[in-house]
Structure formats: C-alpha cells, structure tokens
C-alpha cells in the first residue's frame, strides 16, 4: 500500500525488537468482544487512478458553478481565487504543519497569523482580532457567549437581518447554558426597529451588515443605545469584501465583530470549511475565545512570534476556559491573509467597488423585468428581489437552463409565506455580462 513504508521484513524485525509475536499481540488489552469481525462490509484498497476516478464521478453528478450563470450568495460568495494563492497554501510547509506550539520552527505560520490578526483588525475597524474560529456562525455564537461572560447577563437579541445559520448556531450554543436567545423574524424590507427593544437585561444585540436581505444600515445609534443599556453590540458580516467599501463596524461602535471569511479565502466549496473572523475592543481581550498570536523576542533579541495568552484556553484552564475551541481554521486563515495581501489596499477597495458596481447594474436590469421588484434599496453585492411566483420553483426551472438564479428565502424561512417569492441575488466579479443576460432572459421567460 503506497502510503505505508513498513515492509513485511521491517514488521518482523520490529516485532522481534519489541519481543511480541504479532501485531495482534500488541492489542492484548482490547477485549475480544470488541474486535472487528474479519469481514467489515467495506471495499479493499484502490489505486490512485481508481480513487481519482471515483471522486471525479461524484464531482460529475454536481452542476458546478463554473458551468452555469451563478448568482448564489446568502452568506457564501464566489470570488476569483488568484492562482498564486492556491499554490502557496498547498506548500507542504504550510499544509502539513501543526498548530505552532514550537515557535522556533513555526515562525512561518506564526507570522502569517500575526499578519492575519492585523488585517482583520484593520478591515473591521477594531483593535484586536484572534487567529480564527471555525466559521462565521460559530464565531457569532462565541461572541454572544463572550458578551454573556462580560456582562453576566442571560439574554441575547438577534436581528432579523442576521444570517439564519448564525442565529440558529448562536441559539444552539447558548441554550444549554440557560441563555435566552431571541431571534427576530426575517427582516426582508430592512425596516426592523432594534433600538426600541434594547433593555437592561441584554448581554448583547447581534446585527449584520450587509443584512441577510442585502440592506445596509448605520448601527451607530443602536450602538449608543446598547452601550447605554450596559450591553454589547455584536456586528456580523458574511461578505468581508464589503468592508472594502463600507463604513466599518468599528466606526459604528461595535464591541465585537464576527464574520465568515470564506469569500476571500476559498471557493464556495459547498459551504465548508470556512474561517471565522473574530475582532473586538482590546479591553475585552482576556475574554476573547480562540488562539492569539503575539509578538515577542527570542534570546538573541530578535523579533519573533508565539501563541500567547493561552491561560484563557482549555489546555490550561480546562473547564474554566473561555471556549472549548482547539483546532481552528489555520489554513483557511492563511488563505484569507494571503488573498488580502495580494489584494492590498488598492485591490481590496477596488474589487469591492467593482462588485458593487456590477450589482447595481444587475439590480437595474432585473428591476426592468416585468413582475420583478428589487426589495433592497441599499445593498453591497447582493440584494433581494420579489415576484409573484415561488422563488424555489423559479430557481429549479432556471437551473435546468444552467442558470443558478439565486437563493430562495424560503429555503431558510419556509413558514413565512410572504417570503415565498423572494430571491436573494448575489453578483460578483465572477458574473460576466453573458451571465446577466442569461439571468434576465431566464427570469423573463419563467415569469411570463
């Protein structure tokens, strides 16, 4: 077997050195009752060519987005991956390294993480950021838990503009600890009043920008109200590219910013893995979950980097840790950071601007389709449209024409009949003019 370097001779020699009769003898502590029968009902080993073909056969059963005009978003966005990025993260020294517990031989990963933390802090307008969480949804849950630790309060309010997966994950994460997570109904029109709901029992209010239905809002006034009530404002983002064009959550007064970083790190990838971005004000540093990379010096006085403040973590604190997270999303964070470095100030802001311009153009053209209404008055690169037909059915019909028209709101909110005709349409630099033509033509046909 190609992955296994021991030969039959090696095994014999090693058993002799150990003084064991057989490999089986080494399992003598294992009760016979738990031994696998010889015949597990699974196939035997395959050649690399066979495996490659099996995987390709599965891949061929999917309609991949490059084969279609794809306007899919709802928290997961397709951007162009520079070839240099994918090359760099495949380098074995990044790919096959472990968590950098031995800083002397992990300065590569550590410097990347330090740069990542800085990039995330700059983008979000916050003071500090950690070295990543699993994904945006779990980062959001951790933010709520952190707010609860800070405020010692047991109530969390989640805006109806927050991605339902973020909301549900937060609910799941907190409900067993007795925290009451109130999730407001979907805010398709962007009209939700949050300030009126702020009270002194709240640990935090969680909002999102751009909202799940595309709307952009200034949370500055909300931040004031929340702070006045002694609570924290958590701002979530599912499209970090928007931060290249928009006023930052930090400027608006956010205490914690969480985001899903997939869109700038990896292809859509059926939604996983992603990378959770987590930034905060520095006064809350010691309540932050997750790993942190810090600057220090070595015995020769040279600058270097180490994992730090691990006294917050479960290795040392065990049941008193800020979180149980251990493995996080290091390689995706590396991809995110490399992409941000490739973009730089000019590319990051320019690509954001270009995305918005494309989306504005798409909204204009879709608004002209008879029966289609654009719901989002403001948006970044995704907006909601509505029409008098089942969005799910329309999407299914267009998929047959290789147009992936968007994400029907009903997929998340089946119990809100008023959302049946609502479709989320995302437009990025990946959508060509021909894609847009196909979408417009397809919608015209299906809706007529």
């Amino acid at each position, binding site marked *: 077997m190609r992955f*296994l370097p021991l030969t039959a001779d090696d095994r014999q020699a090693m058993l002799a050195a150990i003084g064991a009769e057989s490999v089986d003898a080494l399992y003598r502590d294992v009760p016979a009752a738990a031994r696998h029968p010889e015949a597990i009902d699974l196939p035997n080993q395959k050649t690399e060519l066979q495996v490659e073909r099996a995987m390709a056969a599965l891949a061929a059963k999917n309609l991949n987005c490059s084969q279609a005009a794809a306007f899919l978003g709802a928290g997961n966005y397709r951007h162009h991956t520079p070839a240099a990025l994918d090359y760099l993260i495949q380098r074995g020294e*990044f790919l096959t390294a472990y968590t950098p517990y031995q800083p002397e031989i992990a300065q590569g990963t550590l410097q990347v993480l330090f740069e990542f933390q*800085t990039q995330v802090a700059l983008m979000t307008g916050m003071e500090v950021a950690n*070295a990543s969480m699993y994904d945006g949804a779990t980062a959001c849950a951790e933010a709520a838990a952190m707010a609860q630790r800070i405020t010692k309060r047991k109530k969390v309010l989640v805006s109806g503009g927050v991605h339902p997966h973020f909301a549900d994950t937060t609910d799941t994460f907190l409900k067993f600890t007795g925290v009451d997570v109130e999730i407001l109904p979907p805010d398709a029109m962007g009209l939700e009043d949050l300030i009126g709901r702020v009270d002194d029992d709240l640990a935090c209010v969680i909002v999102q920008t751009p909202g799940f239905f595309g709307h952009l809002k200034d949370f500055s006034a909300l931040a004031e109200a929340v702070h006045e009530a002694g609570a924290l404002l958590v701002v979530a983002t599912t499209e970090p590219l928007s931060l290249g064009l928009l006023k930052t959550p930090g400027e608006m007064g956010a205490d914690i910013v969480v985001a899903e970083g997939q869109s700038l790190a990896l292809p859509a990838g059926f939604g996983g893995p992603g990378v959770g971005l987590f930034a905060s004000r520095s006064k809350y540093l010691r309540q932050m979950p997750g790993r942190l990379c810090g600057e220090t010096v070595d015995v020769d006085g040279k600058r270097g980097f180490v994992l730090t403040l691990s006294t917050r973590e479960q290795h040392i604190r065990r049941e008193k840790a800020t979180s149980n997270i251990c493995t996080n999303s290091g390689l995706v964070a590396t991809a995110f950071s490399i992409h941000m470095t490739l973009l730089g100030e000019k590319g990051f802001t320019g690509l954001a601007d270009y995305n918005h311009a494309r989306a504005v153009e798409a909204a204009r053209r879709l608004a002209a389709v008879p029966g289609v209404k654009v719901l989002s008055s403001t948006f970044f690169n995704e907006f909601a449209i509505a029409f008098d037909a089942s969005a799910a059915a329309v999407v299914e019909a267009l998929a047959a024409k290789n147009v992936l028209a968007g994400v029907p709101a009903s997929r998340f909110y089946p119990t809100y009949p008023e959302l049946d005709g609502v479709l989320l349409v995302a437009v990025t630099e990946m959508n060509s003019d021909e894609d847009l033509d196909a979408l417009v033509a397809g919608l015209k046909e299906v809706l007529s």
Partner: protein
Amino acid sequence: VEERLIFEYDHHDRTAVDVPAIEPYEDRLGGLRRTGAVGLPGLAEPQVVRHYTRLSQKNYGIDTGLFPLGSCTMKYNPRLNEKAARMAGLADIHPFQPVSTVQGALELMDTLSHWLKQLTGMPAVALSPAAGAHGELCGVMAIRAAMDARGENRTTILVPESAHGTNPATAAICGYVVESIPAEESGRVSAEAVKAKLGPHVAAVMITNPNTCGLFEPEMIEISRIVHEAGAYVYMDGANFNAVVGRIRIADLGVDAMHINLHKTFSTPHGGGGPGSGPTVLSAALAPYAPVPYVVRDDKGFRLVELERDADGDAKPFGRMKGYHGQFGMFVRALAYMLALGKDGLQQVSGDAVLNANYLYARLADVLSASFEGPVMHEALFDDRFLKDTGVTTLDFAKALIDEGYHPMTMYFPLVVHGALLMEPTETESKAALDQFIDAVRGLAERAKAGDAEYFRQAPVHTPRRRLDETLAARKPVLRWTPPES
C-alpha cells in the same frame, strides 16, 4: 535575509490583483461608503509569492520531517486528496444550489457516513462538527438533549484527569459540572473508580480511549455497563482512533457518542492549526438528537434536512452547530483517503501505527523513563525521571531535538505523569526513519546524563529563531502591527 511583515513593505499604489476599470455609476450604499483608507499595504504578485515562500521555509511540517507529536496523529497527507478537493465539481459548488444540482455532493456525504458507521459499528453519525472539540460538543449536546427528553436534570459529567483539556471545557460549555476521575497507577481508568463517582446526578462519562497515556482502557466494556446502569451515557473521545481503526467496533465497547477527527485518523491536513472536521457517531439512544443538517436518501435521490422543523421520523435535532453543511472539503479528502486504503489498508494503518509506537517504546525504554507498562497503542509515554539531577528539563530536551532536525514530541501532557514526553510516530514513518530518530534521542539522553546541561539550555541554535520569550508576549500582548509613530 529577514522577512519583513507585509505592513513593513513600503505602502504604495501597488496590487497583485488587478480590477477592471469601473464606469462611473450611482451607488446604492445609502451614504455608508467608507471614507478613510483601510491601511493595508500594497505588494505586487512577485513580492507576495516570495514573502510567503520565505515564510513557509521557516515552518516544519510532515512533508519536511518526522513529526512525533503525541496525540496529534501527524501522518502523511496524500496529495491526491488535495487534488480531489479542487475538482470543480467538488470545490465550485454552492451550499444553497438546488439539491437536484448537488446530488454528487450529498452522495459523497452519505458515503462518508456509511464508512464511518461501518468502521465503528454505530448506527448514526452527525457530520457537521468542525473539529474534535466541536464533535465533543455535539456529543454532549446530544446527551443533554436526550436527558431533557427524558425529563432528567442531571448536573455532572465525569472526566478522567488524563483527558484532553477540551473534554472538561466542553462539558462546562454545556452547563455541566465537571468531576475528575483519578487514574490508576497503571495509567488506566478502572471501572471501580468510575463507579465510585457515579450517581443519579451524573449525565455522562467522557473517556479517551486509547487514552492519552497511549494505553487501551481494558475495562471499557465494564465501565460502559455500569454507566448505562446508572442511567448515564458514555462519551468516548475518538482523537486516538487511529490506533484501532478497522480493528475495534466502537459500538461493542458500549459507547453512546464518539467524535472522529478526520484531520487525524483520516489524514486531512492540519494546515498549521486547522481546519479540522469532527463527525460524531451516535448510539441508537442519542441518534434522534443529532443536529441539522443531515442527508437523507429516498426514492427521489438525496436530500438535505437543514432546518429543525423539517426533521421527520423520530428525529428531534438539538439544533445547528455551524453554518452550512459541515466541513465538506474535509469530507472529500477523508473519503478519498478511505477509498485509497480500503478496509484492508485501514487495518494495516492501525497495525503499523501501533507497531511503530511499540518499537519506539521498546527501543527507548532503557534510556528514557517509560511511564507505564505496555504494550502501548499508537503512542508511547515517557516522563522526566531519566533527567533527574541532570539539570535538563523536558522542555530543554525537546528543544535539543529540534537541532537534530526533528519536531519535538508532545511535552508536559498528559498531566498524570511528571514532565511528560509523549511520542506518536504514526504508521507513515519507515523503520529507517524511526531508527534515525531513536539514535538521535538516545544520543541526547546520553548527553544529558553525561552532564552537558548547558548544551540543552542553549538549544535550539540552528533555527530561524531561538527560544522565544513567551512570558513577555503574555505580559505585554502585542497582537497586531501598528504603524511606527512618526
């Protein structure tokens, strides 16, 4: 040549990603356009590639050498898996495409589930947990949901003192009080010790098996029996599944929940700290509480249950653990690995992993201090008695190994012995590589015993950085670059 931070490159109008020119347009930002600069540096593509190439060269990975980090299963990551994960039909698919257009992806998840269930004998698996600790959370939440369904309000989870720190942390996050079970002199947990702590307040026992001392828990079946008798559940930490994969039916140990680290046993790359993937297998008692989403096959093909309210049959999902549908990219890699090895190959994997660990153990036992009697499973535990009176600490010893060209073993864990050195070679090391490593360790042990403590205190000397001041880092945290004051 030292490699600067990207922020220390001269800031300029440079980019490595050109954007098409934008025609003037009327924005829809509602006045929320950012005004200031972000503060990012500008590098051209050649500079970026060189920056990260140079940084990568300051890293040690499996690809560069033996990585005997105990409890971490640093095995070879086949390159085909990376290739498969990049096939357009597996990479460029969106989580919210109509399910009719992603039948291959759902079939892949279903096939992976089938393998995990067959390998463990367990009836159900929740795929979505993002890592081992997240899988623990899944298991404990399922336990909590089951207890709630039974109308029982049990408060406590028992955790052996040798457990990974994630175990008590997870229990605490789910609102449980953690009580510790002491280890026996032999490094094992006895049924008797568990029994002593059991009671109607106990919801579950979390037990790592093979345990963190590298030993199989011989009383596991009995422990499960008494735990079940007490109305509690058995969580088994599957971090060390590599030792037993294809050889032991987890179900027959009486386990109710166990996470499986795809990034350990099934070889998805660690990537400097993740992403991982921690599918959790569940017993019939816990299966109904598995979180959303999950894949269902019916006569029309595969479908995805994404919302609690859509659950059918006996299912009463306890909720959702993360965004989207799990670590799909890791599923691709793990399934490619499983198909490559097959049943026979996986049995050889565990056998070779255990053989390699026992070989290390046997060849080093006379110079290091073996903590417990073997045979060990996939890893070998030593403690620092052999360093007594040498002035050399476990840390010094590990750092000296770096100068020999190796990544150190796990240090100071598990906590049940003093100055632990935990070595896990995995099955992907050759005998020749182990012999070379053994020679290096023996050489260092002799050097320590010969009194050359200064050599160890200076180590490492051949690395891009020498020992770093971790105290300073924690006392005055500098967690980001800030522009120099001008």
